[in-house]
């Protein structure tokens, strides 16, 4: 039984599932990384995802245009981000709490709109799988990595892009400065507000796409609360990844791969109670973090509002 786990089919299956499962986490967590690097904690990601998911779905169904759906999700996510930015930067609201408020709002509003505008559960013809020419014919690797949905590819492409922005551009420098030492940044003429507005809105936009990736690419359906807390895990993964895009990628993959592993454990009939199996990704994430003890510090200004003259 346990030896079944090591067959080729199963390993390919676990990896391919893991990649798909990781996709929404990647969008959301990379977005959150920018925000947290600039010193802002956004716990409302799940709500942004749900609104993005619904918007993309609704627009896609009504217009038949999937890219329009993605655009709509980005706009909605950005708007939520704008609201969060205003509340955080201008009103200095307690970030953990305001995030929860936005989460509840997004959860409720997406559900309400779904009930009133669509009424029933239905499916949409979402983004199809795209085989990357040549690479998808590689044995094993081809099936796992190169026969996925386009939104999956974009999610993974975001990682090096995010890394580049954060580490190789002046924008990235400013973002990090704002998160580490806002007073110094301010005195050097960096607009804290503008940077934070940028990162928060970016985060919201990406959360919207994360939701869209679920409703019109991977799952092709919308259901109430379909994210089921995914956004919170994504935020947690930013901490796991030590605020670095590659670390976040590692976290998303670890979590998702263990999740797909436990699915296979159940399917193969290995005698583990289903609830214990479901626990595995969560426990393992903690254990890995404990094992890789490193004194990584959070951005010093994380969750602290900035007021000149403080």
């Amino acid at each position, binding site marked *: 039984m346990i030896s079944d786990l090591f067959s080729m*089919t199963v390993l390919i*299956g676990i990896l391919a599932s893991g990649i798909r499962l990781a996709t929404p986490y990647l969008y959301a967590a990379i977005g959150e990384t920018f925000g947290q690097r600039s010193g802002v904690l956004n716990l409302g990601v799940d709500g942004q995802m749900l609104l993005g998911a619904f918007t993309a779905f609704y627009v896609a169904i009504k217009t038949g245009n999937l890219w329009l759906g993605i655009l709509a999700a980005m706009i909605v996510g950005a708007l939520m981000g704008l609201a969060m930015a205003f509340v955080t930067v201008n009103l200095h609201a307690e970030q953990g709490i305001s995030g929860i408020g936005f989460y509840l709002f997004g959860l409720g509003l997406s559900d309400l709109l779904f009930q009133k505008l669509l009424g029933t*559960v239905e499916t949409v013809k979402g983004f199809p799988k795209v085989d990357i020419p040549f690479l998808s014919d590689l044995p094993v690797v081809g099936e796992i990595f190169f026969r996925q949905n386009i939104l999956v590819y974009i999610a993974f492409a975001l990682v090096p892009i995010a890394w580049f922005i954060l580490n190789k551009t002046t924008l990235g420098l400013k973002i990090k400065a704002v998160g580490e030492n806002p007073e110094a940044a301010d005195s050097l003429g960096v607009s804290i507000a503008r940077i934070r507005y940028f990162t928060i809105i970016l985060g919201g936009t990406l959360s919207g796409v994360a939701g869209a990736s679920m409703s019109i690419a991977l799952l092709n*359906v919308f*259901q109430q609360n379909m994210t*089921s807390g995914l956004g919170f895990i994504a935020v947690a993964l930013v901490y796991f990844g030590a605020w670095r895009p590659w670390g976040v990628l590692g976290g998303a993959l670890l979590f998702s791969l263990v999740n797909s592993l436990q699915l296979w454990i*159940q399917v*193969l009939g290995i005698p583990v109670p289903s*609830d214990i199996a479901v626990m595995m990704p969560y426990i393992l994430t903690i254990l890995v973090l404990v094992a890789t003890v490193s004194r990584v510090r959070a951005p010093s200004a994380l969750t602290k509002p900035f007021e000149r003259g403080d």
Partner: protein
Amino acid sequence: MKKFRLLISVLILFAVILGACQAQEPAMEEKELFRVAVVMPSAINDLAFSQSMYDALLVIQTEMGGAEAMEIVYSDGMFVVDDAAAAIRDYATEGFDLVIAHGSQYGSSLQEIAPDFPETSFAWGTTVDTFGIDNIFAYEAASHEGGYVNGVIAASLSESGVLGVVGPIETGDAKLYVDGFVAGAKATNPDVQVNVNYIGSFSDVALASEAANTHVAAGADGLTGTAQMVVGAIGVAEESGAMWFGTQSSQTELAPSVVVANQVYRWDVVLNEIIDLMDEGTLGGKSFVIGLANGGEVMDFNEAYELPEDVKSLAMDTVDGIIDGTITINLGE
């Protein structure tokens, strides 16, 4: 320095006392209207548990003559037990004739509330326990029956000999259905492999979808599952061409090319019986089971799916066999 806090506390205390001094006023509705209130744990359009009850109420309303004859009022999303308890109690206080507590977790609360409202009839699902209280009806679905039939069809049609099940949490109605499916499949083909996966949530659509992918990768060409997150699995079925067997409501619309059959819950069968009893003056004390025999569960075949004649008649024979008792379903692990 603490004075302002004291003042706030006094103000709030004041509001509280003011409220407590007001007499309670129950609503006074003296029309001949039949008033039904239903409390349910998920949304009325979840395509599963809650929707099946809400749809049934709508059917009854139409039968009775529309909204002038029957008033339906609902509280959805009541997954928190004490919120639901407050709702149930409130509806009873407002004078509703029948208050339906459509969730197995509401039982404890009902036990407390029902005796306080002897004029009101309560219905509780899904279980058969009326606590011996004479104004509680109980209702349950013999979901293993339709599950069995689905399993029979699935095993007959499966070419790979592997079937997959995506379940939420291993309890209650879900487990009953799954066990029935497994029994039916094995009874038809003892060599068939039925892989079962409980994803640990009623709402995680993404995980349900990947569970289905896992089944397909493990060779399944027939899938089934229960609860609202199952829409994710249906999508995978459609994409991979695997057969889908539904339960609780008709899921044909979601994937017309692969849905073979659905076990549709017709709670209105039970509701009609309850209403008849209420007319005679009995407000509870009886329990009902919807099953294939009383039409409470109906095997609904997808017209668009080409089902071979012999399998269809096997399915109908199975239904008959369950109804007349010649087929016994062995649920066991």
